[in-house]
């Protein structure tokens, strides 16, 4: 139950990791790329065991207690939170609005 063999198979390349980082909006140092290439490959090697499992006739489980389409009345509820309370955490604002950097480089 607790044994595991480390997969030596290089599951991911450095380029794969760089691509993943880009998709997730992360910038990695050279050392980080090396480290994550190894570690993530190992973890993917471990979860590889799922491929061999026979799941014939089974459906995925996305929700555990059988709830679906939980609705609420379409009414405005006043949660008594001041606009200023929501704005106080903004890193940058102008005229009461969120200020963002320019989109095009």
């Amino acid at each position: 139950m607790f044994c595991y063999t480390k997969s030596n198979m290089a599951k991911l390349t450095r380029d794969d990791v760089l691509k993943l980082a880009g998709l997730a909006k992360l910038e990695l140092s050279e050392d980080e790329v090396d480290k994550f290439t190894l570690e993530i490959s190992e973890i993917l090697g471990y979860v590889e065991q799922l491929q061999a499992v026979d799941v014939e006739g089974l459906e995925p489980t996305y929700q555990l207690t059988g709830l679906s389409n939980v609705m609420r009345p379409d009414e405005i509820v006043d949660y008594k939170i001041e606009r200023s309370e929501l704005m106080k955490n903004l890193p940058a604002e102008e005229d009461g609005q969120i200020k963002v950097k320019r989109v095009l480089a």
Partner: protein
Amino acid sequence: MSQWPSVKDLASDVNSGRVSASEQVEKALKTIEEKKEFNAIIATLADRARQRAKTIDDRIKGGENVGRLAGVPFIAKDNFLTFGAETTAASNILKGFEAPYQATAIERLEAEGAICVAKANLDAFAHGSSTENSDFFTTLNPHDKSKVPGGSSGGSTASVVLDMAPFALGTDTGGSIRLPASFCGAVGYKPTYGLVSRSGVVAMASSTDVIGPLTRTVADSALVLDIMAGTDELDSTSIVKDKLGYELSPTVANLKGQKIGVISEYMSEGLEPEVKDSINKAIEALKQAGAEIVDVSLPSLPLALAVYYVICPAEVSSNLSRYDGQRYGFSKQDTTNLDDIYKQTRSIGFGNEAKRRIMIGTYVLSSGFYDAYYKKAQIVRTKLVKEFEDAFKKVEFLIGPTAPTTAFGVGENIADPLKMYLTDIMTVAVNLVGVPAISVPCPVSDKMPIGLQIIAAQHQDRKLLEIAQLTESILK
């Protein structure tokens, strides 16, 4: 010996005016200060707690009954949104974040007179099994400072064992309440999925995240759960609570004729000998008390960790995409365009484990690999759900160890993420199938605690707490 009476007695003493809420808050703050070197606490809410205590004391002088938790101090894991201090989830990216509203769980406890006195350390965003992934510092085990307290609710659990407050709140996504309870010698309760609203709690893996108490006794856990449980319009996954509630009466049913299944897969090779010995003794004690003990096999259990480490990172990568440096928390402002602010904020603000999980999640959800990893894991999850359902047709409860080992050394597993993940091998299946489970301390020969895990079917929280209370009294 604890400086705190039971939660119920403390609230009744405060309500009757025998002791004051202010005295309780001062006692908690003093203990927090005295035991600072364990790094259990990120911040205290001293000013707000003192104010609330004064208000409560005034109301009691005015003849009011303030509620079932009148003047009871508690400590919240720092992934609960609270007033009175920053909410950081022990992450650099949320540093400076002041919550504009409080978690439903906190609101419900406060409505009964409880007072939040501090925010506890955790693995950043609750990613981890030792608190070593906290972006700030590592919490130390109250029984041995060279050992970890377990995680991710390690600060909350240590705070209760260090007697800082009568109870603490944790979250459990793959074992984060039960594992530290086992490592530190506390009672840790993980309710049925959805029983406690998660509104206002920093999301990790939404299909398994739950909120629960860490306490010294099962009765305290039951009372705190009773107050937090039930539907909340702010969390559409919340479920109704048991009609009878969860507060336990001192005299409950006995163990005679109760059918309890020992999980064979959890008692197999790989279990530390002391843990096996301690759990076997506990099982024997339950048998002596009249329980009918049988072996039960759930053949897919060895796959649970692999399922978890596909589903959890997938949900993490999605939940952490909101940290973009635009609305709250850390933001790298001295950048030239929007894409740079995203990248630099996230690269500086997230620690190693968050980055690792975000990238694994991004991988298993990406178009070429979605079916092979994410969908396949969700289907294997169904296998687990069915095996648990079948097991609960044969027995009322399942038992086994909470963890295969006692607390490991600080630094021992940090360089090997996969080995660290294996710490959760006995707790994750419960989260994947949504059933309730509790870790109760076992008698030990050595000083390091060991937890007995008891598991029940979905919605059987009340029965589980009842049998856990019986077990606790038998093992004492």
